[in-house]
């Protein structure tokens, strides 16, 4: 006898969830690209796509991180929590496309290994504009990859719950690295306060709200879902 795993146990809710997720991401990419072409007509298509996928991944990561606290505040957000792992995989895929486009555009074409180029192409000269922000993004992408690859009951069961949860808590490290990636990357060149304000809003939303909720609510409430998952060896989403 043995447990037989299937790749995804599809049901109506999961299909609906993924349809909404994919539609939302596609709509974001279309609107972002359209606005970029409208407001910045000289931006090349590669840069437009790099920005669209990067912004999409970053925004989706904010949503993913805020889903948990929002569900504790209001049960109407619970449908977002269901199958959140698919949103995480989507976030990784968006980040991967962003990274591939960046590597092809900026790091390929020389005799230096493109991956190595990410780490050696910039020299830190003690200023904010010379911080090697590409490296932050690459490390964050590796973390997101590990999380996406193990977002399955098979890995939850085989890695054991503590190990699996410890690995997936690395999302906060990935988030911190991505904030650094954005702060010392695109925000160094873009002077508009709109971009700065948007990122600042996201940082405050993720760090302060999650922190305050974690401290304010009793453990039985905050960790009820987690404890159920870990004790049963299965995730709810």
């Amino acid at each position, binding site marked *: 006898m043995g447990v037989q795993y299937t790749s995804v146990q599809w049901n109506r809710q999961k299909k609906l969830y993924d349809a909404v997720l994919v539609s939302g991401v596609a709509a974001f990419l279309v609107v972002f690209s359209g606005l970029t072409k409208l407001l910045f007509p000289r931006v090349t298509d590669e840069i437009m796509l790099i920005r669209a996928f990067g912004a999409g991944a970053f925004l989706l990561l904010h949503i993913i991180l805020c889903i948990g606290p929002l569900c504790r505040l209001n049960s109407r957000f619970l449908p977002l929590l269901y199958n959140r792992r698919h949103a995480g995989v989507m976030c990784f895929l968006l980040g991967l496309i962003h990274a591939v486009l960046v590597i092809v555009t900026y790091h390929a074409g020389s005799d230096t290994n493109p991956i190595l180029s990410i780490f050696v192409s910039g020299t830190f000269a003690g200023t904010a504009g010379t911080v090697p922000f590409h490296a932050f993004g690459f490390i964050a992408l590796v973390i997101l990859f590990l999380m996406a690859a193990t977002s399955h009951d098979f890995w939850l069961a085989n890695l054991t719950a503590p190990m699996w949860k410890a690995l997936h808590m690395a999302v906060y490290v990935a988030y911190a690295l991505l904030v650094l990636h954005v*702060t010392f990357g695109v925000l160094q060149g873009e*002077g508009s306060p709109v971009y700065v304000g948007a990122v600042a809003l996201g940082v405050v939303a993720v760090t302060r709200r999650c922190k305050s909720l974690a401290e304010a609510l009793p453990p039985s409430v905050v960790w009820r879902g987690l404890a159920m998952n870990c004790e049963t060896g299965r995730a709810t989403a």
Partner: protein
Amino acid sequence: MTLALRKRHRRLFAVLGVALPVVFVAGIAARKPIPTMAILPNGLSQSPSRSSEMVRDFLGTYPLGVRLFRDAESQAAWSVQIIARFPPVGPDLLVYWIPATQTLSRNLPDDARLLGAFVPEMAFALPPESVSNRGRLLLYSLANQEVLEASNDFVAAATTARADSPLLAFNILPATLEAARSRTLGWNAMHQLDASPRRAAAPICGQPLPRDQEE
């Protein structure tokens, strides 16, 4: 296990909740404006001669303005100054002059004359043949190896004599055009407008614009 995770979670947020906003604010506060070169290296720049001037806008749909200068001492020496309300996006931009007989394409013609590396408000000396021959300005991206923008064709010496030329009738910088319309100004008056103290204080190659030198 739950308590251990909760402790780890709390420690993580204790660090992130403080460190991340601090680093973010520090990173934003340490931003510096995109550096520009006040003076280009030799071979890529030519200082404009002291001249009289008028305002023109050559570069089609893109919001670039062009001022045309004529040297006050040597009437045959002309130069252009490109003013970008919104700097063009493109790596390693160079400014070229080409004869109007050349067909425009993404590639740089063989007989294009390099005027210099594009720096907003930098003035470039026009080649002697542009004074009497019709030609146009090109904005060329050296890194992308493509022509980004081309101006309308013009003859440097002829533009001063034709106040009602099509070049003057459209493609002028909107702000300049509005000012000219509101005062019902002609070419000579636009010359005055351009020689106002506000304009005269604008730098060219690190030097203030010469005050009005009427022809």
